[in-house]
């Protein structure tokens, strides 16, 4: 069990992800178990493998130009006042 990622580390990540852990212990235990399982990646012997990425030719992408949407999206915002989006204050 000493290889388990610590509760503190997981709590810290949760905080960074802006997640409040209410049912603390159950979440932490399950995340620990999942991470412990991910250790199997260590035995995949892929250290020397190159990471391939999907490439798309620029000429296959749509034209890089402004496309007017034509409909008001602002009405869908929950916290919209005047010309501004209302957000909670930053300390």
């Amino acid at each position, binding site marked *: 069990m000493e290889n388990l990622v610590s509760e503190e580390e997981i709590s810290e990540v949760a905080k960074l992800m802006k*997640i409040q852990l209410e049912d603390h212990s159950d979440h932490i235990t399950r995340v620990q178990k999942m991470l412990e399982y991910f250790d199997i*990646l260590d035995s995949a012997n892929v250290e020397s493998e190159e990471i391939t990425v999907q490439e798309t030719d620029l000429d296959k992408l749509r034209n890089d130009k402004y496309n007017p949407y034509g409909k008001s999206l602002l009405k869908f915002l929950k916290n919209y006042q005047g010309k501004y989006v209302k957000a909670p204050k930053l300390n």
Partner: protein
Amino acid sequence: MDLGISALNYVNGIRNGEFTVEEFVSKSLERISQVDKKLHAFLRVNDLAIKKAKEIDTKIKSNQDVGKCFGMPVSVKDNMCIEGSKTTCASKVLENFIAPYTSTVITKLDSEDAIIIGKTNLDEFAMGLSTEFSAYGPSRNPWNTDYVPGGSSGGSGVSVSANECIASLGSDTGGSIRNPASFCSVVGLKPTYGLVSRYGLVSYANSIEQIGPMTKTVKDSAFLLNIISGIDSNDNTTIDNKNQDYLNDIDVGISGKKIGIVSEMTNSDGLSADVLNATNESVKTFEKLGANCEQISLQMVPYTVAAYYTITSTEAGSNLARFDNIRYGYDFDSAGFEFNSYISQARSKLGPEVIRRMILGGFVPSAGHAGKYFLKALKVKSKLIAEINHVFEKFDFLISPTVPIQPFKFGEKIQDPVSFMMIDFNTVTANLTGIPAISVPYKITNGLPIGIQIMANRLEERSLLQAAYALEKTVNLPEVPSL
């Protein structure tokens, strides 16, 4: 009127005047109101379905052009947007979210006169494989309502299996179309990555997920793929398939084709004996049809579940950042809250699995951990792609059981996160490599379905559907039990 008919038979029925669109849609809505209290396939039913049916009947009667679907009722997983209506992703966070635009697949179905009969249930944000993680309660398997229908497109699978509609659209990130197709005894196709536009699909892990059809027959999947596939300027990952007709020559058979039986997927620890027997029977069937089957090995397969969860959690962590109740969310006043605590508080409406995936998604790519998890997962993915490329130089198809086990009872698997993840063992390979894969209903054992998965090389949907059709023709499965 038989609500269990295929999409192609529905079209013939309308063309021959056997029934009207309104009659069929009314009966489908009646069926939904009768059985869906028990099954919970639908999160919402389209109030305008009858109106649309009448409009299409009018077009038919007055000899106007009518789209290929002739008003067939199709359900859609509730993570695809339809302008002006709710799209919840089975999450409380999006309980009242009204989509401001329509996804490309829905636009395409609409232009061919399909009627979207309702939005179906899923695991919250498509994260799960049983619908037990839906914030609105699970769907139930019509073959036995004590059992899960699979997921995450479980509502879609149930709606087709229980004859509540003709066909459905699901999305598949790690098996979310094929798993419920297998569990509910319907056909489920995950197309090649890029063949179907994802514009308007709420993203979970956009580098690997695809929308695809869930249908009563293989031909119906080909029919729907004809409609929904193709290049879309709103999704830069889409591929021009030159309007390929997937129904054409679907019955050419598979004589002389080479099939690889993926040994890692037919020898895994979690594989049930009944599922293995069914798979072995399907191999014999393929051989009788003239195909050559042999065992092959994909050495990266044992690492794919870990790689899949690492990659998808990372992408989910990023994609779900927008659900901060400022950009997307529900009515919850921010007055008096500090910025971070407001977002954390708002996110407490997210369900437990989504929260865990977001934590994982913050952890595995973070500085200090990326080398051990995320980068290694990407390397597994790269090596798996190389293996798949190599194997398709010699083989036409790969086969495996779609899911290593049959449907399980509610609550039976959910407690152990690792054995739960392993249920995805056979399906994630197609997502990580971008290849198409289909689940074909093959057997009912102990009253519950078993599906066989066939995979093909990228953009080989035509031959994949030919193989699936050849297999389907050999099976004669019982009707879904009356509910």
